[in-house]
Protein backbone atom coordinates (compact mmCIF):
# COMPACT_ATOMS: atom_id res chain seq x y z
CA UNK A 1 0.00 0.00 0.00
CA UNK A 2 2.74 2.44 0.97
CA UNK A 3 4.78 1.43 -2.07
CA UNK A 4 1.81 2.05 -4.34
CA UNK A 5 1.14 5.37 -2.63
CA UNK A 6 4.74 6.39 -3.21
CA UNK A 7 4.55 5.44 -6.88
CA UNK A 8 1.36 7.39 -7.48
CA UNK A 9 2.52 10.44 -5.56
CA UNK A 10 5.87 10.47 -7.35
CA UNK A 11 4.09 10.17 -10.69
CA UNK A 12 1.67 13.02 -9.90
CA UNK A 13 4.43 15.30 -8.66
CA UNK A 14 6.54 14.51 -11.70
CA UNK A 15 3.61 15.46 -13.93
CA UNK A 16 3.22 18.71 -12.01
CA UNK A 17 6.92 19.37 -12.20
CA UNK A 18 7.12 18.87 -15.93
CA UNK A 19 3.86 20.64 -16.82
CA UNK A 20 4.44 23.53 -14.37
CA UNK A 21 0.72 24.01 -13.94
CA UNK A 22 1.14 24.53 -10.21
CA UNK A 23 3.90 27.11 -10.40
CA UNK A 24 2.75 28.84 -13.57
CA UNK A 25 -1.00 28.87 -12.99
CA UNK A 26 -2.29 27.75 -9.60
CA UNK A 27 0.08 29.74 -7.39
CA UNK A 28 -0.29 32.95 -9.42
CA UNK A 29 -4.03 32.41 -9.18
CA UNK A 30 -3.80 32.19 -5.38
CA UNK A 31 -1.74 35.37 -5.16
CA UNK A 32 -4.11 37.14 -7.53
CA UNK A 33 -7.04 36.23 -5.30
CA UNK A 34 -5.19 37.83 -2.37
CA UNK A 35 -4.71 41.02 -4.34
CA UNK A 36 -8.31 41.08 -5.47
CA UNK A 37 -9.51 40.77 -1.88
CA UNK A 38 -7.71 44.06 -1.33
CA UNK A 39 -9.98 45.63 -3.96
CA UNK A 40 -13.09 44.25 -2.34
CA UNK A 41 -12.15 45.18 1.20
CA UNK A 42 -10.93 48.78 1.51
CA UNK A 43 -7.29 48.57 2.67
CA UNK A 44 -7.47 51.88 4.54
CA UNK A 45 -10.49 50.99 6.67
CA UNK A 46 -9.38 50.45 10.25
CA UNK A 47 -11.08 48.51 13.00
CA UNK A 48 -10.51 48.37 16.74
CA UNK A 49 -8.71 45.26 17.84
CA UNK A 50 -10.56 43.61 20.68
CA UNK A 51 -8.19 44.44 23.55
CA UNK A 52 -5.97 47.38 24.31
CA UNK A 53 -7.75 49.68 21.93
CA UNK A 54 -5.05 49.40 19.25
CA UNK A 55 -6.48 49.56 15.76
CA UNK A 56 -5.79 47.27 12.83
CA UNK A 57 -6.64 47.58 9.20
CA UNK A 58 -9.69 45.60 8.16
CA UNK A 59 -7.58 43.56 5.74
CA UNK A 60 -5.11 42.69 8.48
CA UNK A 61 -7.93 41.60 10.74
CA UNK A 62 -9.47 39.49 8.00
CA UNK A 63 -6.17 38.13 6.66
CA UNK A 64 -6.51 34.58 8.12
CA UNK A 65 -9.86 34.02 6.46
CA UNK A 66 -8.79 35.60 3.19
CA UNK A 67 -5.64 33.51 3.08
CA UNK A 68 -7.52 30.26 3.61
CA UNK A 69 -10.15 31.21 1.07
CA UNK A 70 -7.40 31.77 -1.48
CA UNK A 71 -5.97 28.35 -0.59
CA UNK A 72 -9.40 26.73 -0.86
CA UNK A 73 -9.99 28.11 -4.34
CA UNK A 74 -6.53 27.01 -5.41
CA UNK A 75 -7.24 23.56 -3.97
CA UNK A 76 -10.18 23.24 -6.36
CA UNK A 77 -7.86 23.93 -9.28
CA UNK A 78 -5.30 21.45 -8.03
CA UNK A 79 -7.97 18.78 -7.53
CA UNK A 80 -9.40 19.31 -10.95
CA UNK A 81 -5.95 18.98 -12.40
CA UNK A 82 -5.14 15.88 -10.39
CA UNK A 83 -8.15 13.99 -11.72
CA UNK A 84 -8.11 15.46 -15.22
CA UNK A 85 -4.75 13.76 -15.66
CA UNK A 86 -6.31 10.40 -14.85
CA UNK A 87 -9.38 10.95 -16.96
CA UNK A 88 -7.39 11.46 -20.13
CA UNK A 89 -6.75 8.73 -22.66
CA UNK A 90 -8.04 5.69 -20.77
CA UNK A 91 -5.70 6.14 -17.83
CA UNK A 92 -8.43 5.35 -15.31
CA UNK A 93 -8.81 1.92 -16.89
CA UNK A 94 -5.08 1.46 -16.85
CA UNK A 95 -5.01 2.33 -13.14
CA UNK A 96 -7.64 -0.33 -12.52
CA UNK A 97 -5.71 -2.87 -14.59
CA UNK A 98 -2.43 -2.08 -12.89
CA UNK A 99 -3.51 -3.85 -9.73
CA UNK A 100 -3.00 -0.87 -7.46
CA UNK A 101 -4.22 -1.08 -3.90
CA UNK A 102 -7.10 1.46 -3.80
CA UNK A 103 -5.96 2.73 -0.41
CA UNK A 104 -2.53 3.27 -1.91
CA UNK A 105 -4.01 5.27 -4.77
CA UNK A 106 -5.91 7.42 -2.27
CA UNK A 107 -2.81 8.03 -0.16
CA UNK A 108 -0.69 8.71 -3.22
CA UNK A 109 -3.02 11.17 -4.82
CA UNK A 110 -3.78 13.00 -1.60
CA UNK A 111 -0.09 12.95 -0.71
CA UNK A 112 0.74 14.71 -3.96
CA UNK A 113 -1.98 17.28 -3.25
CA UNK A 114 -0.53 17.83 0.25
CA UNK A 115 2.90 18.57 -1.24
CA UNK A 116 1.44 20.93 -3.83
CA UNK A 117 -0.67 22.74 -1.26
CA UNK A 118 2.28 23.19 1.09
CA UNK A 119 4.30 24.83 -1.67
CA UNK A 120 1.33 26.97 -2.58
CA UNK A 121 0.72 27.97 1.03
CA UNK A 122 4.35 28.98 1.44
CA UNK A 123 4.14 31.40 -1.49
CA UNK A 124 0.60 32.64 -0.92
CA UNK A 125 1.23 32.88 2.82
CA UNK A 126 4.30 35.01 2.26
CA UNK A 127 2.20 37.13 -0.05
CA UNK A 128 -0.48 37.47 2.61
CA UNK A 129 2.07 38.63 5.20
CA UNK A 130 3.47 41.19 2.76
CA UNK A 131 0.12 42.42 1.45
CA UNK A 132 -1.95 42.40 4.63
CA UNK A 133 0.80 42.80 7.24
CA UNK A 134 -0.55 40.85 10.22
CA UNK A 135 1.61 40.20 13.31
CA UNK A 136 2.86 36.73 14.19
CA UNK A 137 2.07 35.71 17.75
CA UNK A 138 2.86 31.99 17.78
CA UNK A 139 4.88 30.55 14.87
CA UNK A 140 4.70 26.97 16.13
CA UNK A 141 0.94 27.11 16.28
CA UNK A 142 0.81 28.59 12.79
CA UNK A 143 2.81 25.63 11.49
CA UNK A 144 0.47 23.21 13.25
CA UNK A 145 -2.55 24.95 11.74
CA UNK A 146 -1.09 24.88 8.26
CA UNK A 147 -0.18 21.20 8.45
CA UNK A 148 -3.48 19.99 9.89
CA UNK A 149 -5.55 22.14 7.54
CA UNK A 150 -3.56 20.98 4.54
CA UNK A 151 -4.10 17.35 5.49
CA UNK A 152 -7.81 17.90 6.13
CA UNK A 153 -8.33 19.71 2.83
CA UNK A 154 -6.30 17.20 0.82
CA UNK A 155 -7.90 14.05 2.20
CA UNK A 156 -11.46 15.36 1.89
CA UNK A 157 -10.70 16.94 -1.49
CA UNK A 158 -9.21 13.75 -2.92
CA UNK A 159 -12.17 11.69 -1.75
CA UNK A 160 -14.65 14.02 -3.44
CA UNK A 161 -12.41 14.41 -6.46
CA UNK A 162 -12.58 10.65 -6.96
CA UNK A 163 -16.35 10.82 -6.62
CA UNK A 164 -16.37 12.97 -9.71
CA UNK A 165 -13.63 11.03 -11.49
CA UNK A 166 -14.45 9.98 -15.01
CA UNK A 167 -17.59 12.09 -15.22
CA UNK A 168 -18.31 14.75 -17.77
CA UNK A 169 -19.74 17.01 -15.08
CA UNK A 170 -16.64 16.78 -12.90
CA UNK A 171 -15.68 20.45 -13.29
CA UNK A 172 -18.86 21.73 -11.71
CA UNK A 173 -19.79 18.81 -9.50
CA UNK A 174 -16.62 18.60 -7.44
CA UNK A 175 -16.73 22.21 -6.16
CA UNK A 176 -20.40 21.78 -5.26
CA UNK A 177 -19.52 18.71 -3.23
CA UNK A 178 -16.26 19.90 -1.70
CA UNK A 179 -17.11 23.42 -0.62
CA UNK A 180 -19.85 22.68 1.95
CA UNK A 181 -17.79 19.83 3.31
CA UNK A 182 -14.76 22.05 3.74
CA UNK A 183 -16.78 24.89 5.27
CA UNK A 184 -16.01 23.69 8.82
CA UNK A 185 -12.35 23.32 7.87
CA UNK A 186 -12.26 26.87 6.59
CA UNK A 187 -13.93 28.04 9.77
CA UNK A 188 -11.57 26.16 12.05
CA UNK A 189 -8.46 27.11 10.09
CA UNK A 190 -9.44 30.77 10.16
CA UNK A 191 -10.07 30.80 13.91
CA UNK A 192 -6.89 28.88 14.63
CA UNK A 193 -4.83 31.15 12.40
CA UNK A 194 -6.33 34.20 14.07
CA UNK A 195 -5.11 33.07 17.42
CA UNK A 196 -1.73 32.07 16.01
CA UNK A 197 -1.32 35.55 14.51
CA UNK A 198 -3.01 37.80 17.04
CA UNK A 199 -3.06 35.62 20.18
CA UNK A 200 -3.97 34.27 22.62
CA UNK A 201 -2.89 30.78 21.58
CA UNK A 202 -5.11 28.74 23.86
CA UNK A 203 -8.23 28.78 21.70
CA UNK A 204 -6.26 28.03 18.57
CA UNK A 205 -5.00 24.68 19.82
CA UNK A 206 -8.57 23.46 20.29
CA UNK A 207 -9.28 24.28 16.64
CA UNK A 208 -6.06 22.56 15.61
CA UNK A 209 -7.34 19.47 17.38
CA UNK A 210 -10.59 19.75 15.47
CA UNK A 211 -8.69 20.02 12.17
CA UNK A 212 -6.59 16.99 13.06
CA UNK A 213 -9.69 14.96 13.89
CA UNK A 214 -11.30 16.01 10.60
CA UNK A 215 -8.19 14.96 8.68
CA UNK A 216 -8.13 11.58 10.42
CA UNK A 217 -11.81 11.00 9.72
CA UNK A 218 -11.35 11.65 6.02
CA UNK A 219 -8.15 9.62 5.92
CA UNK A 220 -10.18 6.66 7.17
CA UNK A 221 -13.13 7.36 4.90
CA UNK A 222 -10.86 7.66 1.87
CA UNK A 223 -8.99 4.43 2.59
CA UNK A 224 -12.25 2.55 3.08
CA UNK A 225 -14.21 3.91 0.16
CA UNK A 226 -11.62 4.43 -2.56
CA UNK A 227 -12.02 0.89 -3.80
CA UNK A 228 -15.68 1.37 -4.64
CA UNK A 229 -15.12 4.85 -6.02
CA UNK A 230 -12.28 4.05 -8.34
CA UNK A 231 -12.84 0.48 -9.37
CA UNK A 232 -16.21 0.93 -10.97
CA UNK A 233 -16.99 3.18 -13.83
Amino acid at each position, binding site marked *: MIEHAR*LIAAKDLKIEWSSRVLTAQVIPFGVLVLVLFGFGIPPDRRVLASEGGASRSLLEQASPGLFWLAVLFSLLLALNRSFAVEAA*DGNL*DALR*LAGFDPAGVFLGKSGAIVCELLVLELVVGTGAFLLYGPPLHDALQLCAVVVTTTLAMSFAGTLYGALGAGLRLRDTLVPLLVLPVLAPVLLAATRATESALFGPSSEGWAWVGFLGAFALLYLGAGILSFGSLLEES
Partner: protein
Amino acid sequence: MSKPVVRLRGVVSLIGRFPALAGADFAVSEGEVVLLQGPNGAGKSTLLRVCAGLASVHNGTGEVFGFDLTTRSGQREVRRRVGLLSHATALYDELTVEDNVRFWAAAANADVGAADAAMDRLGVGGRLRSIRVAGLSAGQRRRTSLAVLVARRPMLWLLDEPHAGLDAEGRDLIDELVHQAVGQGATAIVASHELDRVDSLATRTVHVVGGQAMEVRGPGQAGAG
Protein backbone atom coordinates in the same frame (compact mmCIF):
# COMPACT_ATOMS: atom_id res chain seq x y z
CA MET B 1 -3.92 -30.67 -22.20
CA SER B 2 -5.36 -27.21 -22.56
CA LYS B 3 -6.65 -25.45 -19.49
CA PRO B 4 -9.59 -23.07 -19.92
CA VAL B 5 -8.57 -19.43 -19.61
CA VAL B 6 -11.77 -17.58 -20.47
CA ARG B 7 -15.25 -18.98 -20.04
CA LEU B 8 -18.25 -16.72 -20.60
CA ARG B 9 -21.81 -18.00 -20.59
CA GLY B 10 -24.73 -15.79 -21.59
CA VAL B 11 -22.88 -12.64 -20.65
CA VAL B 12 -24.79 -9.37 -20.88
CA SER B 13 -22.64 -6.29 -20.40
CA LEU B 14 -23.86 -2.73 -20.54
CA ILE B 15 -22.39 0.52 -21.70
CA GLY B 16 -24.63 2.96 -19.89
CA ARG B 17 -28.03 1.51 -20.74
CA PHE B 18 -26.98 -0.10 -23.98
CA PRO B 19 -26.40 -3.87 -23.97
CA ALA B 20 -23.09 -3.99 -25.81
CA LEU B 21 -22.97 -7.69 -25.12
CA ALA B 22 -26.30 -9.50 -25.19
CA GLY B 23 -25.81 -13.07 -24.14
CA ALA B 24 -22.32 -13.85 -25.34
CA ASP B 25 -20.92 -17.38 -24.99
CA PHE B 26 -17.19 -17.46 -25.38
CA ALA B 27 -14.42 -19.79 -24.33
CA VAL B 28 -10.68 -19.65 -24.80
CA SER B 29 -8.12 -22.25 -23.74
CA GLU B 30 -4.54 -21.78 -22.76
CA GLY B 31 -2.14 -21.15 -25.60
CA GLU B 32 -4.76 -20.12 -28.12
CA VAL B 33 -4.67 -17.02 -30.26
CA VAL B 34 -8.29 -16.14 -30.92
CA LEU B 35 -9.22 -13.66 -33.60
CA LEU B 36 -12.36 -11.64 -32.95
CA GLN B 37 -14.06 -10.51 -36.10
CA GLY B 38 -17.17 -8.51 -36.68
CA PRO B 39 -18.62 -5.21 -37.83
CA ASN B 40 -18.23 -1.97 -35.91
CA GLY B 41 -20.36 -1.83 -32.80
CA ALA B 42 -20.73 -5.59 -32.65
CA GLY B 43 -19.32 -5.73 -29.14
CA LYS B 44 -15.71 -6.78 -29.76
CA SER B 45 -14.21 -4.10 -27.54
CA THR B 46 -16.70 -4.79 -24.78
CA LEU B 47 -15.95 -8.50 -25.00
CA LEU B 48 -12.28 -7.69 -24.47
CA ARG B 49 -13.12 -5.36 -21.58
CA VAL B 50 -15.21 -8.04 -19.92
CA CYS B 51 -12.31 -10.48 -20.26
CA ALA B 52 -10.06 -7.83 -18.71
CA GLY B 53 -12.34 -7.53 -15.67
CA LEU B 54 -13.12 -3.92 -16.55
CA ALA B 55 -16.66 -4.05 -17.88
CA SER B 56 -19.11 -5.47 -15.41
CA VAL B 57 -21.19 -8.55 -16.11
CA HIS B 58 -24.84 -7.61 -15.85
CA ASN B 59 -26.24 -11.05 -16.55
CA GLY B 60 -24.76 -14.49 -17.07
CA THR B 61 -21.58 -15.99 -15.71
CA GLY B 62 -17.97 -15.42 -16.57
CA GLU B 63 -14.61 -16.71 -15.43
CA VAL B 64 -11.08 -15.78 -16.38
CA PHE B 65 -8.28 -17.95 -14.97
CA GLY B 66 -10.95 -19.41 -12.71
CA PHE B 67 -11.78 -16.04 -11.12
CA ASP B 68 -15.42 -15.03 -11.06
CA LEU B 69 -16.04 -11.95 -13.18
CA THR B 70 -19.32 -11.19 -11.43
CA THR B 71 -17.59 -10.33 -8.15
CA ARG B 72 -15.38 -7.36 -7.53
CA SER B 73 -12.64 -9.38 -5.88
CA GLY B 74 -12.64 -11.76 -8.85
CA GLN B 75 -12.42 -8.86 -11.28
CA ARG B 76 -9.52 -7.46 -9.31
CA GLU B 77 -7.61 -10.74 -9.56
CA VAL B 78 -8.28 -10.92 -13.29
CA ARG B 79 -7.13 -7.35 -13.91
CA ARG B 80 -3.72 -8.14 -12.47
CA ARG B 81 -3.15 -10.99 -14.89
CA VAL B 82 -4.22 -9.47 -18.19
CA GLY B 83 -2.79 -6.87 -20.50
CA LEU B 84 -5.17 -4.77 -22.54
CA LEU B 85 -4.20 -2.71 -25.54
CA SER B 86 -7.24 -0.60 -26.32
CA HIS B 87 -7.91 2.36 -28.59
CA ALA B 88 -6.72 4.66 -25.85
CA THR B 89 -3.03 4.40 -25.16
CA ALA B 90 -3.27 5.11 -21.41
CA LEU B 91 -0.14 7.23 -21.22
CA TYR B 92 0.52 10.44 -19.31
CA ASP B 93 1.20 13.15 -21.86
CA GLU B 94 3.40 15.16 -19.53
CA LEU B 95 5.75 12.31 -18.72
CA THR B 96 8.53 10.92 -20.87
CA VAL B 97 8.36 7.55 -22.54
CA GLU B 98 10.72 6.15 -19.95
CA ASP B 99 8.72 7.53 -17.01
CA ASN B 100 5.50 6.16 -18.41
CA VAL B 101 6.77 2.67 -19.07
CA ARG B 102 8.59 2.49 -15.75
CA PHE B 103 5.56 3.73 -13.83
CA TRP B 104 3.18 1.18 -15.27
CA ALA B 105 5.77 -1.57 -15.07
CA ALA B 106 6.48 -0.80 -11.42
CA ALA B 107 2.77 -0.83 -10.72
CA ALA B 108 2.67 -4.39 -12.01
CA ASN B 109 5.72 -5.35 -9.95
CA ALA B 110 7.90 -5.66 -13.04
CA ASP B 111 11.51 -4.61 -12.57
CA VAL B 112 13.28 -1.73 -14.22
CA GLY B 113 15.23 -4.10 -16.46
CA ALA B 114 12.05 -5.48 -17.97
CA ALA B 115 10.81 -1.97 -18.67
CA ASP B 116 14.06 -0.99 -20.37
CA ALA B 117 14.16 -4.18 -22.41
CA ALA B 118 10.58 -3.66 -23.53
CA MET B 119 11.29 -0.10 -24.66
CA ASP B 120 14.25 -1.26 -26.72
CA ARG B 121 12.24 -4.11 -28.16
CA LEU B 122 9.48 -1.76 -29.33
CA GLY B 123 11.93 0.74 -30.72
CA VAL B 124 11.11 3.51 -28.29
CA GLY B 125 14.36 3.18 -26.38
CA GLY B 126 17.38 5.30 -27.15
CA ARG B 127 16.60 8.81 -28.31
CA LEU B 128 12.85 8.55 -27.79
CA ARG B 129 13.14 7.51 -24.13
CA SER B 130 13.46 11.00 -22.77
CA ILE B 131 10.84 12.57 -25.01
CA ARG B 132 7.50 13.48 -23.53
CA VAL B 133 4.63 11.37 -24.75
CA ALA B 134 2.79 14.50 -25.90
CA GLY B 135 5.51 14.96 -28.51
CA LEU B 136 5.22 11.47 -29.99
CA SER B 137 3.52 10.47 -33.22
CA ALA B 138 0.47 8.23 -33.05
CA GLY B 139 2.51 5.20 -34.05
CA GLN B 140 5.15 5.92 -31.45
CA ARG B 141 2.48 6.31 -28.77
CA ARG B 142 1.14 2.92 -29.69
CA ARG B 143 4.58 1.39 -29.51
CA THR B 144 5.06 2.91 -26.07
CA SER B 145 1.74 1.52 -24.99
CA LEU B 146 2.81 -1.88 -26.28
CA ALA B 147 6.07 -1.58 -24.40
CA VAL B 148 4.04 -1.21 -21.19
CA LEU B 149 2.14 -4.36 -22.09
CA VAL B 150 5.32 -6.31 -22.83
CA ALA B 151 6.96 -5.15 -19.63
CA ARG B 152 3.98 -6.33 -17.59
CA ARG B 153 4.24 -9.88 -19.04
CA PRO B 154 0.52 -10.59 -18.81
CA MET B 155 -0.80 -14.15 -18.97
CA LEU B 156 -3.68 -13.07 -21.18
CA TRP B 157 -3.14 -10.58 -24.00
CA LEU B 158 -6.19 -8.61 -25.07
CA LEU B 159 -5.46 -6.60 -28.18
CA ASP B 160 -8.06 -4.28 -29.66
CA GLU B 161 -7.12 -3.39 -33.25
CA PRO B 162 -3.42 -3.65 -32.47
CA HIS B 163 -2.34 -2.99 -36.03
CA ALA B 164 -4.13 0.31 -36.40
CA GLY B 165 -1.81 3.21 -36.95
CA LEU B 166 1.36 1.15 -37.19
CA ASP B 167 3.77 0.80 -40.08
CA ALA B 168 4.55 -2.56 -41.68
CA GLU B 169 7.53 -3.07 -39.44
CA GLY B 170 5.43 -2.38 -36.36
CA ARG B 171 2.76 -4.80 -37.48
CA ASP B 172 5.30 -7.55 -37.95
CA LEU B 173 6.63 -6.75 -34.52
CA ILE B 174 3.22 -7.23 -32.95
CA ASP B 175 2.76 -10.59 -34.59
CA GLU B 176 6.18 -11.57 -33.38
CA LEU B 177 5.45 -10.43 -29.84
CA VAL B 178 2.18 -12.32 -29.66
CA HIS B 179 3.87 -15.42 -31.08
CA GLN B 180 6.61 -15.22 -28.53
CA ALA B 181 4.24 -14.62 -25.62
CA VAL B 182 2.07 -17.56 -26.59
CA GLY B 183 5.20 -19.66 -26.94
CA GLN B 184 5.94 -18.82 -23.31
CA GLY B 185 2.54 -19.97 -22.13
CA ALA B 186 0.38 -16.89 -22.57
CA THR B 187 -2.97 -16.70 -24.33
CA ALA B 188 -4.13 -13.98 -26.70
CA ILE B 189 -7.41 -12.58 -27.96
CA VAL B 190 -7.11 -10.16 -30.85
CA ALA B 191 -9.87 -8.04 -32.30
CA SER B 192 -9.00 -6.97 -35.80
CA HIS B 193 -10.36 -6.06 -39.18
CA GLU B 194 -7.12 -6.93 -40.89
CA LEU B 195 -7.81 -10.56 -41.58
CA ASP B 196 -4.82 -11.20 -43.77
CA ARG B 197 -2.47 -10.26 -40.96
CA VAL B 198 -4.07 -12.12 -38.12
CA ASP B 199 -5.01 -15.22 -40.08
CA SER B 200 -1.44 -16.42 -39.95
CA LEU B 201 -1.39 -15.78 -36.24
CA ALA B 202 -4.76 -16.99 -35.09
CA THR B 203 -5.56 -20.53 -34.14
CA ARG B 204 -9.27 -19.85 -34.25
CA THR B 205 -11.70 -17.17 -35.39
CA VAL B 206 -14.77 -16.02 -33.51
CA HIS B 207 -17.44 -13.84 -35.04
CA VAL B 208 -18.90 -11.16 -32.83
CA VAL B 209 -22.25 -9.96 -34.10
CA GLY B 210 -25.06 -8.18 -32.30
CA GLY B 211 -23.41 -8.56 -28.93
CA GLN B 212 -22.95 -12.30 -29.30
CA ALA B 213 -20.00 -14.49 -30.10
CA MET B 214 -20.26 -17.22 -32.74
CA GLU B 215 -17.69 -19.88 -33.39
CA VAL B 216 -16.37 -20.03 -36.93
CA ARG B 217 -14.34 -22.94 -38.22
CA GLY B 218 -12.38 -21.43 -41.03
CA PRO B 219 -10.32 -23.44 -43.51
CA GLY B 220 -7.17 -24.84 -42.05
CA GLN B 221 -8.14 -23.89 -38.54
CA ALA B 222 -8.77 -26.69 -36.16
CA GLY B 223 -10.89 -25.92 -33.12
CA ALA B 224 -9.53 -25.52 -29.65
CA GLY B 225 -6.69 -27.82 -28.93
